[in-house]
């Protein structure tokens, strides 16, 4: 019997507005606890929320980029529940009328076909604070710096049918969000969070199985792993004739399993009702038009363009456009250097490997796109060998020094001067008489050895193809 997995995802995105969603407090990350608060975001009695226009505008941009419809009338609701990180004991959110709905993101399924995932709703709400539990103490502390930060909730329909698809959706969604520059999309800082709903059912079955909500995944890979684990767990439950319990489970990253969250005794009843402190308003069409006009070229469109204007493969275009900063870096370099395929190889190869290893973004890397172009030109004009160029690249990425300066400081310039090389070649031939005999006897490996000797004597600076040619010429004499 085959089983089908049904997954829906809920992404929370912190918008990188200058100030919070409903007050003027700063949204800067990592500040002293409770230093970025005011009576409004602390929910002090008598204080009132006022919608941050920038947060609204960012939300509209996201909605448009995800192909959503925009609600004519924008209204907020209160979601009531008690928790110490929630200063008012209600969250300003949107319930029956999310600011946008019915959009989509196209993903690539495992069989390489394109699949459209419906974005059911995108709504704006406020974030909560953070509880801190000092080790060994009987009390907890609350940091309200995060309370009131603008948060977008992006919810899909249960259209995803495998952890693979869920992962691809998240990667593509994040890519789009990064292009919009409305959030730093940093999962480590919590500015992008993902919860998942998953159920299984027998193939061809129409009715959905009982869903389980998964939380506490801190990376996209974690989401994929949690879904993989949970799908297996549910299928084996069903096979054993057990009932799936509708519950929230937490991903335990250490043990790579999902565990039930301490179940709440009662069903949640958030007692949503319209937020009376914020007057519903009709969206100004001009604002939507402005947001639409300001949308950047999005990843899919850019990948298409990279294929067409730079002649890159589909794979290369997708890799390069997946992250907006890398796409922009590549494109800057490609404008200064006439062989885009070579530039692409360097970006996707050594540079991306280095970024991964150092766990930094290309924005944080010190080497400019202009420097990369300069470096590639030095290979083309024979100043540097490929091997030398890699060394220069490492140093440039590390220090940001111009490749020309690195070459100069280290005296790295490649020797292409034939007379100079011939001198070394003659000396090597004189010293390695035995190898020369081998060569003449037809041993091909002997040539490689001699080239190596010449390279060693020139400290690797000789242009290898020139060395090759001169050796053959001299050995033939």
């Amino acid at each position, binding site marked *: 019997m085959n089983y089908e997995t049904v997954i829906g995802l809920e992404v929370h995105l912190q918008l990188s507005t200058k100030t919070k969603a409903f007050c003027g407090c700063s949204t800067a990350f990592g500040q002293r606890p409770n230093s970025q608060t005011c009576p409004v975001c*602390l*929910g002090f*009695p008598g*204080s009132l929320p006022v919608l941050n226009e920038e947060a609204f505008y960012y939300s509209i941009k996201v909605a448009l980029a995800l192909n959503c419809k925009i609600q004519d009338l924008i209204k907020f609701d209160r979601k*009531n529940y008690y928790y*110490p990180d929630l200063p008012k*004991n209600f969250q300003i959110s949107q319930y029956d009328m999310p600011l946008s709905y019915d959009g989509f993101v196209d993903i690539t399924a495992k069989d390489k076909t394109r699949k459209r995932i419906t974005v059911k709703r995108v709504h704006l709400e406020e974030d909560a604070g953070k509880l801190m539990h000092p080790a060994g103490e009987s009390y907890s502390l609350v940091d309200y710096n995060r309370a009131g930060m603008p948060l977008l909730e992006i919810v899909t329909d249960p259209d995803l049918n495998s952890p693979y698809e869920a992962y691809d959706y998240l990667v593509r969604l994040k890519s789009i969000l990064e292009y919009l520059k409305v959030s730093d999309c940093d999962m480590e800082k919590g500015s992008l969070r993902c919860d998942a709903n998953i159920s299984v059912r027998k193939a061809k079955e129409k009715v959905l199985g009982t869903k389980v909500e998964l939380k506490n995944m801190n990376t996209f890979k974690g989401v994929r792993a949690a879904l993989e684990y949970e799908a297996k767990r549910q299928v084996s439950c069903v096979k054993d004739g057990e009932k799936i319990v509708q519950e929230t489970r937490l991903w335990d990253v250490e043990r790579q399993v999902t565990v039930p969250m301490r179940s709440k005794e009662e069903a949640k009843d958030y*007692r949503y009702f319209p937020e*009376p*402190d914020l007057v519903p308003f009709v969206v100004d069409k001009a604002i939507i038009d402005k947001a639409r006009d300001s949308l950047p070229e999005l990843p899919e469109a850019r990948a298409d363009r990279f294929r067409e204007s730079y002649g890159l493969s589909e794979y290369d275009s997708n890799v390069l456009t997946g992250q907006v900063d890398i796409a922009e870096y590549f494109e800057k370099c490609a404008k200064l250097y006439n062989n885009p395929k070579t530039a692409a190889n360097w970006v996707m190869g050594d540079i991306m490997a280095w970024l991964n290893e150092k766990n930094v973004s290309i924005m944080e890397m010190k080497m400019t796109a202009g420097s990369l172009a300069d470096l590639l030109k030095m290979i083309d004009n024979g100043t540097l060998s490929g091997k030398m160029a890699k060394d220069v690249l490492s140093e440039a990425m590390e220090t940001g020094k111009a490749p020309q300066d690195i070459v100069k400081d280290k005296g790295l310039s490649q020797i292409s001067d034939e007379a100079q090389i011939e001198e070394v070649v003659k000396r090597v031939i004189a010293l390695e008489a035995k190898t020369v005999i081998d060569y003449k006897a037809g041993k091909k490996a002997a040539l490689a050895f001699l080239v190596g000797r010449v390279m060693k004597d020139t400290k690797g600076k000789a242009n290898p193809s020139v060395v090759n040619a001169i050796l053959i010429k001299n050995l033939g004499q």
Partner: protein
Amino acid sequence: MDKLHSYTAHALMKMIDKEALDPSTIRSDVLDRIERLDGKIKAFVLVNRPDTSAPASGKQDTSGRLSGIPVLIKDNICVKDEYTTCSSRILEGFRPPYDATVVKKLRCEGAVLIGKANMDEFAFGSSCETSCYGPTRNPWALDRIPGGSSGGSAAAVAGDCTIMALGSDTGGSIRQPASLCGVVGLKPTYGRVSRYGLIAFASSLDQIGPITKDVEDSALLLGVIAGHDEMDSTSVDMPVPDYTKALVKDVKGLSIGVPKEYFVKGLDKDVEECVRGAIEKLKGLGARIVGISLPHTEYAVSAYYIIGPAEASSNLARFDGVQYAFRDRDSRDLIDMYIKTRSKGFGNEAKRRILLGTYCLSSGYYDAYYLKALKVRTRIKEDFDKAFGSCDVIITPTSPTPAFRIGEKSGDPLGMYLSDVYTIPANLAGLPAISIPCGFSKEGLPIGLQILGRHFGEETIFRTAYTFEQNTDFHRKRPAL
């Protein structure tokens, strides 16, 4: 000059303008009055005495519209660093780190913040009896309630213990006590006055307004506190007229609507007589009287007691002992802290309304109660829209009865809720309405007349009220204390 406390603000301002009065003397006179009388009335929960150790600050600035005028602030309006408790134990010790917008405006005009006024706990009540500090007494009969919830504000104005006061009105909390204490109380149009710093009861109904000795002071004080506030999204961005210019002694050609649904069973005979007399008086002064119908009036109280508590249950959720004010210190864990803090911090009426509101918003009940109440609210608004097609203002009684005795209705919440039957519709519809004195019961208790206007029709209300007041002398009568 020895009875400054009995003057109105506009009379005092005239003297100050003529340099016939040192504004600082008003405060000391009023403070003496409070000292002598507030032990009986108990209108104040806090009296601001000037810091006598500070050196006198030389010549006072008299450029403000209320320079030196004592204004009493209801205890649900935030005053920076001053105890603001909503007469509730749960806000024990709470000192807001900011001023309400209305308080800022008063300071700008040179007003003296004389103290904080007692009220029903969180404005839940019509008698001032639910205060954690105990009831305020009606200056006209100390064994009677002053009305509520702005009972402290109204009683202090009636007892000359302040020149003016601010109240808040969610279902009649300014107008009903003004009526019962024989003073003038105005609930402005929803959105006319910023609510920033008003500790919310029901956000969609609450409005701050003046309680004063006469209509001119009401116009003066409204002019100071009204206006758009970027801190309050529900405040309306409309220019504030000079309301004192609307004080014209003339109602000729004005159409006054009298709703038949307001003169029914439950209306006290003396009240009906006085209100009908007032209508006759206005007719005699040239107004046209039009019979109107507000057919959904009978559902107003029910709708109000769903919408109000629903919003209140959410607004009051923040009082949980986590951040500020009262926290029960004996709790074992978080849930225990919530339960004990709220059980001990809130009084019975607050608990009743929180429970009621929570219930009405709960899943499975929302449509039957909350949503239905919103529909009633729309109908009531439509009633008024229609009525204002044939009249300029509407006149009704403010309260169905004069002041009742302390304790008389405290065991009868439904009976108490009906005290607001005539005032609630204006809140549901967001309309402005004033209560002005229009006579006395046979027992000598003040009776009030309510005048409702169109949205932002405060000027027409003032004109009508002023004309009536200037042709009668009910507002000049003062209780014997």
